[in-house]
């Protein structure tokens, strides 16, 4: 029977190759832990490059993986098990870039933004209650909030394309959503009215990231132009321009601010610049220390007095405030785009290849899985 091509299904073969390629290059851009009072993390939300938002139950992942392979996988194992999402919605056309929870508890809103320039919101309670599975393609869930970035008006009435949203931040006291946008502006949306309250203009290139410093009603944005800016939300003016790459630029390297992170007291700012992280004390507006890493830093956050950072290599780095490496944990994604921390210390790392690695506070891998594709 070998070599018999009578039943050759060319389209099927094409599809399978495309699907395979698509699957391999799919990327998790953001992971987020659902708010919960349980000390053990139960639900992880994953936003990926196919525009989907899926939630996974960690406990079922662990038990499935255990029965699946007998032992949970080590980081070098390429044959990762696929996990079944407990909830699945098609969030955006094009990749979904960011996920945030607005508020917590019963009436928490799940906000997402993506390449289509929209910010969408769902009621988390409804999502968990409903039975939306992969098969239904998540289309039955309508967002309760849908905001579209404004287009720029050019000469003769020409309209620019809708700029994408790369990151969002929230201020629940003011009822605001901040979006870092592709037109080098940051927008402040009013959640109630669905209108743009404020536009923050000043960066010379598109924005990568945004964090809200709610204690002093400020936001901090990081941009492709290599600077981070601190904005006052009341006036919409840039309070301070931080140029973390100033010293590195002299050496001729190009840098951009890919991610910024604030610590819990909102007085320390970590600011990535290519392969470097600079640590700023905001009250003193001084750079305290600089950390050089092996690969481009793509996401980071503070845990107590330590900085967790991931980047273009499969490592989860933990630094202290002086920039000394405390630990380096191998993780599944070859390039990690997102890191999120559960209050009890469990960390989820998501990235290229649609891999998610959940790492316990011991540094051991609780579960590692591939996200399901549509």
């Amino acid at each position, binding site marked *: 029977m070998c070599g018999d091509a009578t039943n050759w299904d060319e389209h099927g073969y094409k599809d399978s190759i495309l699907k395979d390629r698509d699957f391999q290059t799919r990327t998790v851009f953001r992971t987020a832990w659902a708010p919960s009072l349980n000390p053990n993390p139960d639900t992880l939300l994953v936003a990926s490059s196919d525009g989907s938002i899926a939630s996974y139950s960690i406990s079922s992942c662990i038990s499935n993986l255990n029965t699946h392979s007998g032992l949970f996988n080590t980081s070098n194992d390429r044959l990762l098990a696929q996990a079944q999402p407990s909830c699945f919605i098609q969030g955006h056309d094009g990749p979904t870039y960011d996920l945030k929870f607005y508020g917590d508890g019963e009436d928490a809103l799940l906000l997402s933004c993506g390449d289509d320039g929209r910010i969408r919101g769902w009621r988390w309670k409804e999502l968990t209650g409903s039975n939306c599975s992969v098969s239904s393609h998540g289309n039955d869930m309508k967002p309760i909030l849908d905001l579209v970035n404004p287009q720029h008006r050019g000469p003769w009435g020409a309209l620019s394309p809708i700029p994408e949203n790369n990151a969002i931040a929230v201020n629940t006291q003011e009822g605001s959503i901040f979006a870092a946008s592709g037109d080098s502006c940051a927008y402040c949306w009013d959640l109630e009215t669905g209108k743009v309250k404020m536009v923050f203009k000043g960066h010379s290139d598109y924005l990568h990231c945004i964090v809200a410093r709610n204690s002093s009603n400020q936001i901090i944005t990081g941009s492709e132009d290599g600077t981070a800016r601190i904005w006052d939300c009341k006036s919409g003016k840039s309070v301070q321009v931080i140029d973390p790459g100033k010293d590195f630029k002299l050496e001729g390297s190009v840098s951009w601010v890919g991610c910024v992170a604030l610590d819990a007291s909102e007085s320390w700012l970590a600011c990535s610049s290519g392969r470097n992280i600079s640590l700023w004390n905001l009250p003193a507006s001084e750079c305290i220390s600089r950390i050089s890493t092996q690969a481009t830093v793509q996401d980071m956050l503070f845990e107590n007095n330590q900085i967790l950072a991931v980047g273009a290599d499969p490592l989860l780095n933990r630094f202290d405030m002086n920039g000394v490496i405390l630990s380096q944990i191998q993780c599944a994604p070859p390039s990690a785009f997102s890191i999120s921390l559960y209050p009890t210390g469990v960390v989820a790392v998501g990235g290229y290849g649609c891999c998610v690695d959940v790492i316990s506070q011991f540094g*051991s891998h609780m579960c590692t899985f591939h996200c399901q594709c549509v």
Partner: protein
Amino acid sequence: MEVLKRAIMQQSGPPETFALQMVQEVINPPPKQTKLAQDENQFLENVLRLLLQEFVSASGEKIMQFGQSIDESESETTQGHIPRLLDITLYLCEKEHIEGGMIFQLLEDLTEMSTMENCKDVFGYIESKQDILGKRELFARGKLVMLRTCNQLLRRLSKANDVVFCGRILMFLARFFPLSERSALNIKGVFNTTNVTKYEKEPLEGICIDFNFYQTFWGLQEYFSSPTSVNHAPAKWKKFASSLSVVLNTFEAQPLSDEEGDANNLEEEAVNFSIKYLTSSKLMGLELKDPSFRRHVLVQCLILFDYLKAPGKNDTDLPSEIIKEEITLCEERVKKLLQLTPPKGREFLGKIEHILEREKNWVWWKRDGCLPYERQPIEKKTVQGDKKRRPRWRLGNKELSQLWKWADQNPNALTDPHRVQTPSIMEYWKPLAEDMDPSAGIEAEYHHKNKRVYCWKGLRLAARQDLEGFSKFTDLGIEGVVPLELLPPDVRSKYQAKPNDRGKRSKKEETKASAHQVEENQIATPANEIDGEDVKTDTTATPMEFDAATVIGTQGGPTPDELQKQSSDTDIGPEAGQLEADAEVEAGIIDGETDADVD
């Protein structure tokens, strides 16, 4: 019995004074010899045991102190009744008046009758009499009883709480029995599988923990407690290896800093020491940050690897090549981790490796059938041979010292007809004279006048023995120095300055050549004295005087002092005033001289 009791309670002073007499009183009729017959021995033993029992039952809580005088002034010298009884018995046993096993019997009785608290005192007594008990005659009689006593004690002790006392007993046994004593050996190599490390099988509510990791981690202990299973089933090994790699990955990802290593010093560790792991899942996070905890686990791994790699009774027990390779890889990882674990990881690993290496020797010993390996002390000669050290040279190095000793070893060197001597002028110049004969047709390259060393030596000879010839050097060059007698007639005329002087000169030559040696030795001493050098130097150096300079020259880089010495040794010509100048010449030329022949 009453007699004995009275003796013990009332007599004071060392047992030697009254013990024998006491025995003779007890035995009825009194024995004739100092050694007792068998039935008499038996009788005495019964009496002693009864007496001991009486003492113990009469005494209160502290049996070893019972009967001790309360009077403070005497308390230093007096003993309790029981130690007294034991002392007397021990004395009798040691002198072989009574059967040697009796003391051991009494000690066993005593430990069996005492509480654990008192046993410590009794054991202290045993330890203090260790030397006497360990004597060959007594040891042969009582070793089994002693072993039984100790094992009974160990069985009664709690392994968790009486660690120190257990250790004392084990130490005593180790010292009491020869090293190769195999009675305590686990000959079959059975593992204590009852030593199970329990851990939680269900995750606790309300705390956050990676339960899989927790189970994997503590699951390893099962393999450690029963390693045979890993050895025989490849599947089990696989499972073990993957669990281990998960744990090692976790360790490797989180190196411990020196601060964490410093945080718990050894004293604290001793306080917290426990022979079992604390396996509560709540402690897991803390334990992973604890360097000593990490060390315990890693050392367990090393022990297991050593077991797996050790040869079994037959070769089929050996693990396969693939598993062996994996073991080696894991072992390297573990060792590296140990090295990185503060404090002093490198030193710690070194010690552990040393201990494991020793352990391997024991494994081999056991495999070879536990042969006794104590050796008789080796005879002294070989001991000295072993002690052979690198010799120390009195004068700095071998050659100098040999030179120094040369004279002592060769007392007749001066009269030896074959000794190397300063050649006479006539002999020395012969080769050059032959070359000067044009009929020989020597090429310039091989001509002796072009050999700088030869010429220089010749000039020095001439300066000493043939001043007249030497003086011609200024006018006629090196060839003029050659004695005319050696030259062929046609060449001779060329160098003949004053023909009438010739006769005188040749006569002088002859006398000098014969008296040469004597003259030299006589002059040597004053020359040295003038120079302020040690007189000793010349007595040894003279036999070699001509070549001394070259010999020393080969040592490379003589110091100015040495040069000075050389000059005094070698330049023994009559012109003491020239010594300085000579020395300078020598110093300048000495490197060029080294290629000259060295005897």
